[in-house]
């Protein structure tokens, strides 16, 4: 039972942090980041590579966040003056390119062989037996911290400007707000949060390889955000729990159905695609959201 709770806390918690970063960008600022997983990958790889080279973990994690934030800001600066779909195209491209680089720069990343045997926080103090329990606590603490940070920001004048840009950028500009700069800030901060979730994922998995960071991960985050009602941090966390529940029940059911592994993972993915389609067509305001708060439909 405890193991079960620990595994929920770890997977759902890490994905909730990941998705909260996206919710800041999409839910509050209306930015179409289709390459969110790239920033998670940057967090994981930078943290692991630096710590394998003797850099203490905390600075290694921070370095990943800073680098991911800078990358997010750069992609934003290249595209945010144009129509919003360019950001989507460029970010999804970036996430694929980054994965190619990680796969092929073998001297640094060991390619698809992956990296393992890297340090994890307090591993000597905690010991291997209780480590997941400890890490689950750490993940939940980070989740709480990120949640509080984002809630504070969402309720602040900064968050108000962000929401106004999402609703109608021209209004924000007519009232003296530098919309471009706010969008870049939201991208950078959301990407840094994704990097943080990537570091935690690396600690949890003990083994990372570029194929952990397929584009589909980005759209898991999208489903979590939209399901919970875009622009709602608590909803996003709920979305992460629901998606986690979906995966564990479908895996559980596979035990009883005699599908081949490719067929059943294929079927699960088809379902994911259909969920995304169905949500956009029938419930774009999310499960909890009210129509007036609809941040997509218009």
């Amino acid at each position, binding site marked *: 039972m405890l193991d079960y709770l620990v595994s929920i806390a770890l997977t759902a918690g890490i994905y909730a942090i990941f998705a909260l970063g996206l919710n800041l960008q999409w839910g509050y600022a209306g930015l179409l980041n289709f390459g969110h997983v790239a920033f998670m990958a940057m967090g994981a790889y930078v943290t692991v590579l630096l710590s394998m080279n003797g850099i203490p973990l905390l600075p290694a994690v921070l370095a990943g966040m800073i680098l991911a934030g800078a990358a997010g800001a750069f992609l934003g600066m290249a595209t945010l003056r144009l129509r919003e779909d360019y950001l989507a195209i460029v970010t999804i491209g970036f996430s694929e390119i980054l994965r190619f680089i990680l796969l092929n720069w073998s001297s640094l990343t060991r390619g698809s062989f992956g990296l393992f045997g890297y340090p994890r926080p307090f591993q000597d103090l905690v010991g291997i037996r209780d480590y997941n329990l400890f890490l689950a606590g750490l993940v939940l603490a980070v989740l709480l911290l990120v949640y509080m940070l984002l809630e504070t920001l969402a309720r602040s004048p900064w968050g108000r400007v962000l929401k106004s840009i999402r609703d109608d950028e021209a*209004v924000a500009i*007519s009232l003296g707000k530098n919309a471009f700069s706010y969008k870049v800030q939201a991208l950078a901060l959301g990407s840094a949060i994704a990097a943080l979730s990537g570091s935690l994922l690396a600690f949890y998995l003990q083994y990372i390889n570029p194929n952990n960071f397929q584009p589909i991960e980005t759209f898991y985050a999208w489903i979590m955000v939209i399901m919970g009602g875009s622009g709602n941090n608590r909803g996003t966390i709920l979305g992460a729990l629901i998606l986690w529940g979906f995966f564990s029940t479908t895996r559980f059911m596979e035990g009883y159905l005699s599908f081949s592994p490719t067929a059943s993972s294929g079927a699960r993915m088809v379902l994911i695609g259909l969920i995304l389609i169905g949500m956009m067509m029938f419930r774009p305001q999310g499960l909890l959201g009210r129509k007036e708060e609809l941040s997509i439909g218009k």
Partner: protein
Amino acid sequence: MANEVLSAISVCKGFGGILALDHCSIRVEEGDIVGLIGPNGAGKSTLFDVISGFLPPDAGSIVFSGREILGLPAYKIARLGLVRTFQIPRSLMRMTVLENMMLGAQGQAGERLYIPLIRRHKVMAQEKEIREKAEEILEFFDLRRMRDEYAGSLSGGQKKMLEMARALMADPRLLLLDEPFAGVNPALADRLIERIRILKEKGLSIIIIEHAIPYVLALSDELYVLNKGRVLASGRPDAVISDRRVFEAYLGEGA
């Protein structure tokens, strides 16, 4: 001679084939209300877009408070105190009326990313001030009871009011109002005229685009008539309005 707030000189703006603004010039003196009329498609809204920095002109010069503002990004122009409203009201639909208003305030420390995290009390104090000011202005526009509604749920006339109220939150020196009376019922319109007069008495300069001539006559110190992107006539309202060419321009539109 009174202080000049705005002087746009020989502004031109073309869209593909048509010249929406053709060497158009306009001046506003401190504390004046300037009316801007003209048939549909005359270029009035385009002039607002250009003055407020939303559209780059092809040629011309725009001086505001003694400073050339041509080429400045729109948000910087707004920060200097030149605030525009939109012809079709642009409410922030998924924000409440009060949030719409509070957005308008200038110099908010809490709009910097890190300030709300490290200076909570300062931000909260400032928020309180801004909220009070917002409620005052909402009261002025009879919108106070709507303050917690989503702006998307307001009626057309209320949206127009909110549009103007929100612009006032920015403490502008010059306010550009694009058809503030459109969609506002006549009883409310009379009160709106009163309110605009009060704003003028407080020293605000205003340019009003309006199709309803009586309202313009009731308010303006100066009147400009635009037709096909050019200033057809300008001067004292009663003189301008009796100008034959103005009459013909409007007739021409009807024909």
